[in-house]
């Protein structure tokens, strides 16, 4: 078990300002710096304070976070069982054809193979018409509580605590409504059980933009909708310069990503950005952590102003250590 930095270490004296009611926190990272330790720090902080957390991921499955959390002394599995954590998996089945209310058994085979294979070969050709195989659009809603994940469900009597998002192989606009609906219903399910609105953590939204072809406006709408029903929102996005710095030759892919990150940066209350050292790789430094005040955090409007700062961090087997530039890692 390794040590995680506390939010106070990450954010300095202004940690109590973040993330507060109705605030938006943006965490950006680049290729080579993993933002997950920051996520664990936040989750740990939320869950230890007895908050409800809804975690949406589009690039990793629950087992990944479970193992990662375990290393940091964070038992996500038990929180999932208790219901304080809601995990919405937009990774495992995102582009698989929607399976109607047919519980998936513990064998890993049936879930994808009949669905994907079944959608195509019987139609007589390898070329499914765009938007064709997603006919049972209404089904997933009913299907979600009954699908049982092989890994997560230890008790067969209880429904799978993990909710899955499925867009189908060729997503259509109606599918995104579905997605909106799934996350919302999951969130509302949480908030009815307790007085507090859940804290929301969303990871991998870029997949929706890049792979599913959702336009930026729809994603932003989704975020605004979700912010309404959650207490605080944390969004993780990659911010490689390739994806952010646009030029006249940029493709729609890059433009839409830049669009999303920048517009979120302008609404966020604070931005935590992780990047590699500008001077190259060092043995005892993993990267740079920068805390930036977002446009949402105006002086006077909230309890205080987020203090901007830049620090170095080092991820090792022993945990993550944050230190000031020049103070060395030792």
């Amino acid at each position, binding site marked *: 078990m390794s040590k995680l930095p506390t939010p106070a270490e990450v954010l300095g004296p202004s940690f109590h300002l973040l993330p507060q009611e109705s605030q938006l926190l943006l965490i950006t990272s680049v290729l*080579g710096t993993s933002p997950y330790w920051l996520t664990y720090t936040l989750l740990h902080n939320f869950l230890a304070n007895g908050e409800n957390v809804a975690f949406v991921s589009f690039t990793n499955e629950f087992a990944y976070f479970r193992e990662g959390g375990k290393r940091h002394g964070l038992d996500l599995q038990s929180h999932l069982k208790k219901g304080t954590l809601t995990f919405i998996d937009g990774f495992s089945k995102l582009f698989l054809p929607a399976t109607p209310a047919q519980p998936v058994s513990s064998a890993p*085979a*049936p879930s994808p193979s009949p669905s994907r*294979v079944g959608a195509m070969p019987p139609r007589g050709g390898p*070329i499914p018409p765009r938007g064709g195989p997603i006919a049972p659009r209404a089904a997933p809603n009913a299907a979600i509580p009954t699908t049982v994940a092989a890994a997560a469900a230890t008790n067969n009597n209880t429904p799978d605590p993990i909710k899955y998002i499925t867009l189908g192989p060729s997503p259509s606009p109606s599918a995104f409504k579905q997605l909106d609906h799934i996350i919302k219903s999951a969130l509302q399910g949480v908030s009815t059980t307790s007085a507090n609105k859940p804290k929301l953590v969303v990871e991998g939204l870029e997949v929706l933009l890049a792979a599913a*072809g959702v336009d930026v406006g729809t994603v932003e709408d989704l975020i605004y909708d979700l912010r309404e029903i959650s207490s605080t929102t944390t969004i993780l996005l990659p911010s490689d310069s390739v994806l952010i710095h646009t030029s006249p030759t940029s*493709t729609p892919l890059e433009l839409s990503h830049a669009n999303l990150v920048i517009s979120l940066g302008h609404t966020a209350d604070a931005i935590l950005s992780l990047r590699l050292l500008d001077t190259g790789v060092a*043995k005892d430094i993993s990267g740079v952590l920068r805390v930036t005040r977002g446009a949402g955090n105006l002086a006077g409007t909230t309890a205080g102003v987020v203090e901007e700062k830049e620090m170095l961090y080092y991820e090792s087997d022993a945990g993550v250590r944050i230190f000031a530039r020049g103070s060395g890692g030792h």
Partner: protein
Amino acid sequence: MSFRKRSVVLNTSDSSNPASTAPSGAPQSTPPTPPAKGVRPSFLTGVPTTSTGTASLDALLSGHEGLPLGSMVLIEESSTTDFAGALLRYYAAEGIVQGHNVVVVGVGEAWGRELPGLSDRKEDNEDIKKKGKEERMKIAWRYEALGNRRTTDSTPPPQMGTDTSEPVSLFCHTYDLTKRLTIPPSSKPPTYIPPPPPTSASPFSSILSALHTHLSTASSKNSITRVLIPNLLSPLFYPPASSHPTNLLQFIHTLRSLTRQYSQILTVMISFPLSLYPRTTGLTRHLEHLSDATIELHPIPTFLARFEMTKSSSTSTSADDIPQGLVKVWKAIEGKRGTGIVGSSSKGDGSGGVVGMEGGDDLAFMLTRRRMRIERFSLPVDEGDDGNDEHKAHNPSSTVGEGVGGVETGKKKMHKVDLEF
């Protein structure tokens, strides 16, 4: 205490203790299944890993000393050469020799006919060992710690397998590119998934459905599967529609979810031509984000020329030691599953993945008739320098002729240093 029957032997009463029997039903009574052939636990975390067929690439994987099952490696190549193809062929050949399922996507059977055969040269491995020892002798004790990482690099993991005490199974074999692999009777020939039809709106769906069928049968038999996608998006095999971000990234995203779903049997290796899709495009970056490890092979023309020269002139410098290009690790496999930690222990960082990133230790690759190696690369050192001798330094900025000369003088200098010790 009082609930325990006095007459029963302690051991058995222990096992009939309700607390232990409840969970022990399945996991304890069944003996742990021995790992499949060609699979061994990671040196770092114990997750099962399999070999890439290239010992020095295994050593590069964040201290795992193998490719963890359930991961996807992207090999980028920024030139029109086909060094990545060699890596993929080793990976495929290793799979066939180990009796794994090998699935080749997108290219025809001709690709598979060029798999390298097993090297029968005993010296290959002894060579490496001897070299390692020599290095030890040369380096003064106080530099030994410095050289450590290097030495572990050049004595690749298969060493432990090649130790004659363990003839059972090698983790990583040595191949000879001049030979052709004869498929042993115990193994299956590779399966080929044809490239998508040229006129197709969603070109990857046929590949994915074929992969699904393969994987579901493979997982029922619990057989290790290697999926190779050589030259992804190369216009030779893939229709224009496949490079549309939605198509490609959906495919890669689904592939990634497959590696997680079949994390006990599946590894994927993709080679990707950077000359067609440079790293400055969002598409490539998304691809890199979705893969578990990204390694770029960057052949350098002057290196290549020098390599050719050395080969033809057959001077004292063996062609083995001339690099043909640089290796850059853009994204290292996570050291511990579920964390962002990329090997940071003293073993984990062995010149490999982590530090191999931008600006860190430079890595170079050399492909010879006998094998492909990835080694640390450094520029020539100045006069009066310490025992950096073993790096066989080359100056990339020098011209070809000077380069060779530089090597020679470098060697002389090295000997001088040796004498001083």
